[in-house]
């Protein structure tokens, strides 16, 4: 076939183009974060590379530095001017605390339930799974208004613990179904052999089966972390002062204008953990995103 070489070159070129299109918004955002204000808000043309890079936006949002006074400078917006309004350190801390805790909780609790659902055949187990699945499909708005009241009564409103519980709630169905699919991969004969040797159910679970699905647990934990890290609506409704990063960023948009430098800096910083984690779980990504329905 004479055209096969040119075909494969064409395939490379098209692939590079497609990938570039999907990477572009992130790259543009990251680029904006190191532009000086004058380059971001240039009304005459779009500034691409001809600017002097600055890390001022990161200094203010990630390190909590003072916002520079822009008297005579080119500030397109007056925005929120309160002291520390653009300090993202608190929200980074909150997001970390919430994501790590809810990941740990959801994974741990789901492990117990997933093991039972995979190993013990009991009446109603399929119904139970369907119910858990329906929780995954639950639109957050349907529970958010009562949750606001319930959290208020329990003193959980605007607390880290409250959001941790809320994120655990949305992560449990995903973690449970995913972990069950990993448990299902382990032959039940292994449990039987361990129990003939005198292990209790819990020992069999903890000492024998659990180590065999370490990779699956790690993938589950990573996905739970990403879901919690990126979650928006529950955090928005259930907090006033504790702000996770996605919610904090939206406060940088004001009726008088948006602080694009700060938005892009905090936004870019917020993407980095997810990038690192998703590259670690590439092998189990499809299974994770389909809650175990497609095995890779």
């Amino acid at each position, binding site marked *: 076939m004479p055209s096969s070489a040119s075909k494969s070159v064409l395939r490379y070129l098209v692939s590079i183009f497609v990938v570039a299109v999907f990477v572009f918004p992130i790259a543009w955002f990251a680029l904006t974060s190191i532009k000086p204000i004058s380059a971001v808000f240039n009304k005459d043309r779009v500034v691409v590379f001809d600017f002097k890079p600055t890390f001022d936006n990161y200094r203010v949002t990630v390190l909590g530095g003072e916002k520079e006074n822009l008297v005579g400078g080119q500030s397109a917006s007056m925005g929120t001017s309160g002291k520390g309004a653009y300090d993202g350190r608190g929200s980074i801390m909150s997001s970390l605390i919430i994501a790590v805790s809810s990941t740990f909780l959801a994974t741990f609790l789901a492990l117990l339930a997933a093991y039972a659902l995979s190993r013990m055949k009991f009446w109603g187990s399929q119904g139970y799974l369907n119910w858990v699945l329906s929780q995954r499909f639950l639109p957050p708005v349907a529970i958010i208004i009562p949750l606001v009241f319930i959290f208020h009564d329990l003193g959980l409103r605007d607390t880290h613990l409250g959001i941790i519980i809320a994120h655990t709630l949305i992560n449990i169905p995903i973690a449970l179904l995913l972990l069950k699919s990993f448990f299902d991969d382990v032959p039940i004969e292994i449990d039987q052999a361990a129990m003939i040797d005198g292990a209790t159910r819990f020992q069999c679970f903890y000492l024998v089966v659990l180590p065999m699905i370490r990779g699956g647990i790690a993938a589950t934990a990573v996905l739970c972390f990403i879901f919690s890290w990126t979650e928006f609506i529950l955090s928005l409704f259930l907090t006033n002062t504790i702000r996770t990063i996605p919610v904090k960023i939206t406060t940088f948009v004001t009726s008088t204008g948006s602080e*694009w430098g700060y938005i892009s800096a905090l936004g870019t910083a917020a993407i980095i953990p997810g990038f690192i984690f998703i590259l670690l779980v590439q092998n189990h990504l499809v299974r994770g995103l389909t809650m175990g329905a497609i095995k890779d």
Partner: protein
Amino acid sequence: MGSAQVRQTSKGKLPRWLTSEHPLPWLFPVTSILVVFGLYPVLYSLWLSFYKRNPATRTEKFLPSWNWNKLIGDERVWDAVTVTFTYAAIALTIQLVLGMLIALLLDSDRRGFGLFRALMTLPLVVPPAVTGMMFLLMYDSSFGVISNALYSLNLLSPDHPILGSGSTALWGVIVADVWQWTPFMVLIMLAGLRALPKEPFEAASIDGATAFQSFFFLTLPMMSKIIALAVLVRGIDLFRIFDYVKVMTDSGPGTATETLTAYAGTVYFKSANFSYASTVALATLILVLVVSTVFIKVFKIRF
């Protein structure tokens, strides 16, 4: 590996409920969280929806059918249903077709394609609220890179900002959704393509089938289960869409991009009518449950 270890560990040191053979202790923690913070709020919502709120006196009165009748007669709800379905249908179709095409493109073992596939997954980890910001920045009518590109191609005039015009705002939001979630489809389709058996394709090519024929008569039918699953998972998320709309347009201009969830949020935040907001939110839930149940039954999806 574990049996030697196990025998050494003394039995009976663990509390009774942990050594039980009954599934209850294993399921109890998860069940209690799902019931207290998942099921109970839904019932609470339902109970709230049975109360009529009097905005003047700020009191509630038990009138079970009031909010539901109001919902049926509320034109904004029907507009929101239309927007939700339009949004979901358009976004899903584009993501499905693009996802399949890109998967076919990137399904290669040649050098570099592994990197391409890894890069394609990056949009998935961007918080949707941040995605909304990224596109807001690129859509900005004076310095946005997308707007300016469209100006120079004469596809858009500066008098009609993308998100500020009723005719284009929904498309603006859909583009952000497509950008973020097409990679999801690509990943699923790639997994499907890689799991296909080789023999039928070899047989077909010996029999003289074209690439198009083997795609439509072999690939698609063999992947129908996977495609159905992808449509289900993505479709439900599309019905629940909130983040992009809230961040990018806040339902505007007017109500051009107001989805059901966004409307529920608006009722909650702007009129503080919790009973009616709950009713609208429950309507979303009912819609999602009906559509997904029918879909799961029709396509026999099992998790």
